[in-house]
């Protein structure tokens, strides 16, 4: 999706330069939400202000929105059909496989040292008891605390921040 947007915006339409696009992408990744949707909103805002942002976000969201309405309608219409029931049994398994796949992929960039590994192992049982958003927030907080402690003892700083900045965010 992202290479597709970049090609269209930078090469075909020449709305942004490559550097501008890289900046927007980095920013879009930092914010909550889908990177593609955030990038589209950024581009719209960059080109035509608030109006451009609204048009861009509608443009990128509406096609899938309508597809989802149609698929959702079909699902609720056919959900008790035995063939469809069987299909969803099979699909549920694939969903789990997809999650395992994306967990492994994201682990490659998120688990960079012992503290991050420890945080991962700790977070899984905790998630069964505490609201996921709270755990996410605690994780961010721990990251900042860890960083400010390292900064205070300047001794570790160079190597630790290098590792942090290089592989995360």
């Amino acid at each position: 999706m992202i290479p597709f947007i970049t090609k269209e915006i930078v090469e075909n339409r020449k709305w942004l330069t490559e550097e501008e696009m890289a900046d927007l992408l980095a920013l879009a990744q930092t914010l909550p939400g889908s990177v593609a949707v955030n990038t589209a909103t950024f581009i719209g805002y960059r080109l035509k202000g608030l109006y451009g942002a609204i048009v861009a976000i509608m443009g990128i969201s509406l096609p899938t929105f309508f597809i989802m309405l149609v698929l959702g309608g079909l699902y609720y219409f056919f959900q008790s059909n035995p063939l469809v029931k069987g299909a969803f049994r099979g699909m549920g398994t694939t969903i789990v496989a997809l999650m395992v796949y994306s967990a492994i992929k994201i682990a490659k960039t998120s688990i960079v040292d012992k503290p991050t590994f420890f945080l991962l192992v700790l977070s899984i049982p905790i998630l069964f008891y505490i609201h996921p958003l709270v755990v996410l927030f605690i994780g961010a907080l721990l990251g900042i605390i860890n960083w400010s402690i390292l900064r205070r003892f300047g001794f570790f700083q160079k190597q630790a921040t290098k590792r942090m900045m290089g592989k995360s965010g």
Partner: protein
Amino acid sequence: MLTDLFFTFFIIGLGSFGGGYAILPVIEHESVHHGWMTTQEFTHLVGVAGMAPGPIATNITVLVGFSINGWLGAIVSAVGITLPSFLLVILIYSFLMKFRQKKAVSAAFYGMKPVVTGLIIFASIKFALANGVISIYFTIQYISLVALFILSLFALFKLNWHPALIIVASGMIGAVIYS
């Protein structure tokens, strides 16, 4: 009901860091706690959402909204989950183009990304339990589910198939062997 949908998804949208599958357990948690659906029904909807293009989190949000309150619920939920990032994009653009260089942001992500990973693992355990992929009974059906699971992983890692294609393929296999 509509305001409940809106605010639930607005909060989720605010916290949807990491994107994709990381936010699914949050939506699942809220949907089940509100009594909107069971984990199993939610997994079905994830299957539907995964077949379409677009961010899976927004897709699933549209489906949950649709199942609760028809197309109006779908619109309200979709706007709810999209609005926080929309507002943030505009806010950030207005006065913080150098935001990404702030070391504190990287530090926060350093701590948040392992939790995002944990979230996805947590979600896969939950969904595996709800869909019988983890079970203590070794029936023929269970063995076939595990086989399908391994086949899916193989298609993802080795064959590099598109996820939507694998979902459709396993749906077809499922329709044949489980109906």
